[in-house]
């Protein structure tokens, strides 16, 4: 028992402050999972249908998310409400890792986010095969990381640079053409009936 009520209250406050971010994560995750399931992208057939260029649902979801997200994030950044959190990368990381990921994406038919949705949808190949495989693969990477770290992962290092920084222009000089280009791709797919 804590006999100092003020201290006790403070401890509870600290505890609450620590768990609040996790609860927000859970809430955002629930919304994300709900949306992924409604989009049909928790399904193997839809994801592999995209990679076989027969069903363009995945690309439509991703491109729309990028367009809407990009505009809002850059408006909020301009207003000083948020900061960007770009990931650091290199040719060695993004190209080789990306291609290995792509192969796994096709073989498994889910990705790390949609597989969680697939599990919630009742898909047992995702739960029994896929999730265990991802955990093994991630653990394997952790084991070989020291051997890769200063070699291939540093090849052509470009860090967390963004296109506006790279080209030394205002964000909107890049955002507006990107939004137009990505919207044109979506429009083209609709016209073609994809």
């Amino acid at each position, binding site marked *: 028992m804590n006999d100092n009520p003020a201290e006790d209250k403070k401890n509870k406050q600290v505890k609450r402050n620590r768990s609040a*971010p*996790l609860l*927000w994560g859970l*809430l*955002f995750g*629930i919304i994300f*999972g*709900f*949306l992924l*399931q*409604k989009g*049909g*992208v928790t*399904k*193997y057939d839809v994801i592999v249908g995209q*990679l*076989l*260029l027969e069903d363009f649902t995945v690309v439509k979801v*991703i*491109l*729309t998310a*990028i367009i809407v997200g990009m505009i809002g*994030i850059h408006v*909020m950044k301009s207003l000083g409400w*948020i900061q960007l*959190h*770009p*990931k650091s*990368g290199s040719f060695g*990381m993004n190209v080789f890792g*990306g*291609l*290995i*990921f*792509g*192969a*796994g*994406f*096709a*073989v*498994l038919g889910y*990705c790390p*986010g949609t*597989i*969680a949705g*697939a599990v*919630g*949808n*009742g898909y*047992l*190949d995702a739960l*029994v*095969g896929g999730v*265990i495989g991802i955990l093994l*693969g*991630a*653990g394997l*990477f*952790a084991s070989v990381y020291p051997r890769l770290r200063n070699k291939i992962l540093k090849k052509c290092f*470009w860090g967390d640079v963004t296109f506006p920084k790279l080209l030394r222009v205002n964000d909107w000089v890049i955002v507006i053409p990107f939004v137009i280009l990505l919207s044109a791709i979506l429009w083209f797919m609709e016209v073609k009936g994809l």
Partner: protein
Amino acid sequence: MNVFTEIRWSPYVVGAGIGVLSWLTFLVSRKPIGCSTAFVRTSGMIERLFIRERIGEKEYYMEFKPVVDWEWMLVFGVVIGSLVSSLTSGDFRWLWVPARWGTAFGTQPVVRIIVALVGGVLLGFGARWAGGCTSGHGISGTLQLTVGSWVSTVCFFIGGIITAFLMYTILGR
């Protein structure tokens, strides 16, 4: 019919919803949506169960500590969100072998599970090598106009399309 109990929504509505969700995660949690670090943290937690003292020596687990963090809760939330969506729309079902897989490679669950396991290993390994996945690079990174995330996302699809065509045209029936 209630819109929330419909089985499918337009991909544009879903995409826009994810876009707005990304505004909220930046604004409220100061974090972009991402999923693959949750898996490496879980791998670390499992390894810690077996080799308690050696885990601290692994550099990668110093960068990605084996703890339940915001992103871990996000991924856990995805399971719940999808469960709620599929149960309320009647789209939930226990399924070992997806329909398209069954048509091309047969309906034997063991085969599908083994291949899913192999695919998972490649996916988990590749995601950590690239430093992100379809959500962390593919949506959050690209919308921030990060060069590395655009390169990764293009490579995800190049690798995925080539592999899917090889599997389905050479091995499939």
